[in-house]
């Protein structure tokens, strides 16, 4: 999964790997991130209500992620 901003600074990388089932939902990916990357907790939204960018559009909850999708953590944005 792609990560940016303060999250990528914390991880010292612009992407992290996360182990999930073959066809996870956004909720499941966020829960897996919380479990597998506790150092990124400060940038992770809660799995139930949080969102991820899936193929450059926001998605939440039950939205399914498929093989080949581009998944990005879009949080702690600081525009302006």
């Amino acid at each position, binding site marked *: 999964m*792609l990560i*940016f*901003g*303060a999250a990528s600074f914390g991880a010292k990388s612009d992407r992290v790997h996360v182990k999930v089932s073959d066809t996870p939902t956004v909720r499941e990916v966020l829960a897996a991130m919380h479990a597998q990357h506790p150092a990124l907790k400060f940038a992770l939204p809660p799995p139930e209500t949080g969102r991820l*960018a899936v193929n*450059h*559009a*926001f998605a939440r909850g039950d939205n399914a992620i498929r093989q080949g999708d581009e998944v*990005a953590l*879009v949080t*702690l*944005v*600081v*525009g*302006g």
Partner: protein
Amino acid sequence: MVLALIIDGPLTPELEARTLLGHADQLRSLSGDGTIGATLRFEGIVRRAERDPEAADAERDLLALDYQTYDPMAQRELEALAASVAARHGLKSIVALHSRGRVRVGEVSFVLQVAAPHRAESLAAVADFIDRLKQDVPIWKWSVWAV
């Protein structure tokens, strides 16, 4: 007119004029219809003093900010935000420009200009846009310290 663009480098008057020239027809249709009572223009400028999270949030001197955008999502979300704010506040036009890459101290990284029937809508729209920009548009800034 709804115009939202991410542009490389600082936003200069020349760059903005060139960008708007490409939308001359839309600009023409706006002027002189007598329905605009207020325009509001916001510019965000890079300040010298910035807090350093790695130094207990002490203030340090910046050289520049590097704006990182997640493309093409940043462009899409900026457009979607502009259209949504225009509809919500009944704007007659909205132009939003944001920098990508390096913007030095004193340079402009963000321009928002709105035209509305009355002043209240123009003020509410600008405040609303900036709040939502910081939530929804994938742009991050990195500090380039002076020393």
